[in-house]
């Protein structure tokens, strides 16, 4: 029984944790490159240098003395996000959607509450002292553009921030999913906390079925909308940006997280040196076969755009018959 399941999974190319750690992360992701993805300021700087689309950086506050400079950073901004550079799990993020109508130094949060400038400065001071950093070391506060979410996922997410994750193997996108917040996940796009992960057909950029707590689901648990069949806009650009993540970080096994802005299109939010394996469940497919296919056709000279096209050609999801040309046109 056990061995039958193991053989079946092996046949379908399902990657396990041990294999991911030894054969991919340890082999392809040198530890000295980790800061490039762990420090969000560094990630952003590198991404901008490479000409990638990221939420615009308004300012970085890296010491208590600089906290007073906060009003100057946001002087011309109506909305922005404050977050710790080395935070995790969405802790310590402040989303400011606008200014108070009556007072210029008071702000409106995404939840509708009003917060004063002094309160935000106190929050930044806490971030800088390392309160949201898991290692407890002094951190940096990032103030950046507040993403205006594209309504494409409005039907299949409950509040929060849906994002697109693409696994990139040696520069080639191999698998993708969309993470849809639910009421249970408290608006966070975190599969561990109960968000729905929906597989994406790499070749067409259309969502497949979803997975919730390792179980297959076809409808969003809160909105009831069908998860499959959502066409992700600018799919070519998303794949190409993800592929470029390899040049930026040097990590051979990489997870690239992107959000889609209403006006600016797909933006890179962060990158991950040890992306999880749930993406295989969301896609109902193993990742190992796709990786070995990449090994066969690997071309060190290929540009990110070429690699994205290779991925679209090589990995059509079973049962989705969207020709590449039509998807590209849409």
């Amino acid at each position, binding site marked *: 029984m*056990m061995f039958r*399941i*193991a053989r*079946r*999974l*092996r046949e*379908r190319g*399902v990657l*396990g*944790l*041990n*294999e991911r750690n*030894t*054969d991919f992360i340890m082999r392809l992701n040198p530890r000295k490159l980790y800061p490039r993805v762990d420090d969000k300021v560094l990630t952003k700087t590198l991404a901008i240098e490479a000409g990638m689309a990221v939420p615009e950086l308004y300012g970085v506050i890296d010491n208590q003395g600089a906290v007073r400079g906060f009003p100057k950073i946001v002087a011309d901004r109506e909305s922005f996000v404050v977050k710790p550079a080395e935070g*995790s*799990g969405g*802790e310590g993020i402040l989303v400011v959607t606008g200014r108070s109508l009556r007072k210029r130094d008071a702000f409106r949060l995404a939840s509708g509450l009003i917060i004063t400038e002094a309160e935000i400065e106190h929050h930044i001071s*806490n971030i800088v*002292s*390392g*309160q949201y*950093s*898991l*290692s*407890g070391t002094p951190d940096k506060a990032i103030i950046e553009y507040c993403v205006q979410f594209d309504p494409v996922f409005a039907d299949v997410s409950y509040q929060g921030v849906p994002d697109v994750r693409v696994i990139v193997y040696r520069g080639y996108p191999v698998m993708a999913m969309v993470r849809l917040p639910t009421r249970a996940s408290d608006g966070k796009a*975190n599969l*561990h*906390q*109960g968000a729905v992960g929906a597989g994406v057909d790499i070749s067409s950029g259309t969502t497949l079925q979803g*997975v919730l707590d*390792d*179980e*297959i689901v076809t409808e969003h648990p809160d909105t009831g909308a069908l998860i499959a069949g959502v066409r992700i806009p600018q799919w070519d650009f998303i794949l190409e940006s993800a592929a470029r993540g390899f040049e930026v970080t040097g990590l051979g096994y990489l997870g690239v997280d992107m959000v889609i802005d209403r006006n600016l299109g797909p933006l890179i939010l962060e990158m991950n040196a040890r992306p999880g394996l749930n993406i*295989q*469940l969301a896609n*109902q*497919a*193993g990742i190992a076969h796709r990786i070995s296919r990449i090994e066969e056709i690997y071309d060190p000279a290929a540009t990110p755009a070429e690699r994205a096209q290779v991925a679209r050609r090589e990995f059509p999801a079973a049962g989705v018959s969207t020709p590449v040309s039509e998807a590209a046109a849409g």
Partner: protein
Amino acid sequence: MNQRYVWGLAGLLAALGFTIFAYKWQALGFPVTRNQEVPVYTVESSIGFDSGPGSIKVNLHIPTLTPGFRMLSENSVSRGYGFSLNYGTGGRVAQWAIRRADGPQRIYYRITVYADPDSDESDTTPPFPPPPVIIEPFRTAVDVIVAEVREHSADTASFTSELLRRMNDPTPDPNVELLVSETGSFAELVESVTTILASARIPARVVNGFRMEGQQRDAEFLVWLEVHDGDRWRYFNPRTGEEGLPDDYLVWWRGNEPLLAVEGGSNVDIGFAIQENHLDAIAIAEARATQRDARAFDFSLYSLPITTQAVYSVLLMIPIGALVMVVLRNLIGIDAFGTFMPVLIALAFRETRLFWGVVLFTLLVALGLSIRFLLERLRLLLVPRLSAVLIVVVLLMLSISLVSHRLGMETGLSVALFPMVIISMTIERMSVMWEEKGAIDAIRAGFGSLAIAVAAYIFMGMGWLQHLIFTFPELLLVFLAIVLLLGRYTGYRLLELRRFRALANE
């Protein structure tokens, strides 16, 4: 390349570990099971005599070459005698000497031996004996016997057997009867056999010894016959002519010199008592290693002071726990907090026993976690937060001890043995996971840690395994090899089969 390197290294380590293990086990006799005991025999000879007016000299033959046995220790007890060891033709001779003594004297010599089938030390090749001078009519009888026996035998061994058969024949021929009638005791008869063998130019001597069986208060010497066939010494049962030495026969002395000679004393008596004891096999192995000048024992943990040994007996359990943890985490796929936290918890379980260990651990973590959630609201920095959790954990341990003492449950006192820092870190990591990944994952990992701790405790508590590792620490190299190989295991974890089961069916 990398894979082959790991396999090679693991193979090398395992081979090295097993080789040392096999040498210590097979060659030096280190016991593989606990409380293994080996019988040892103590033979005590007690010499008594009345002292004469002058100086006294006592000579006693003592064991030298003992096939089938090895000496563990020997000592002598006497009052004011000088002691020296000499070598005579029949082996070692112990000598006690004193210038003047009054009244009845008693001297003890004690030797402790253990059975060792490998011990087949044989004496040097003797010269051919000169033809003995025998007076008539015995001379003719001996010549006739030798001639007849030679006719019925092929070599030294069959000659001896045939001769002994004739000497023991209940209806002997007249020549034999003539010789037998001249001997008073059986020992004398065997001596006359050596004389006959000597006239056939065969080196032979009488062997005296004891059978090591049970307790004997007045042990009697058992006479045996030793014959050299030009190549090696062979033993013959002088009663039957059969070749061989009984397994439990301890050779005391050889030849026909008297066992005991006392100069300057009278009313000499000597008695032998044999006592069978059981001694820890470790002690025997130690003695054997010393005799062979083997270095193995110098580096054995048994050579350390007892208190240090006690420390290591615990420390050496940790690799077992680590191995259990590697298997459970990387092969089974159980989630846990901290790399070695479960092993340290398992060490604490050794003191609290399993049931109370699990109860106290769960209680401590649950209480600590609820207080940690209260602290969460205060938004403390990392180090002060951890310190606060640590102080809370100590307070909780204190109150659990006090409450359980009040209730008369003394087991609750052992909560003090839990590693408080480890518990604090567990609580901290559990609460972080609770926030990041949700309550279900955090609780699952908490129970995972507990399950690993219980499994590690069970394996670390296995007496035979403890003994094996303590006696053969080189087996840790084998552990290392296994862990190296598991470090390169890229197959599925058992629980992943469940996690990905949706992918296994169409």
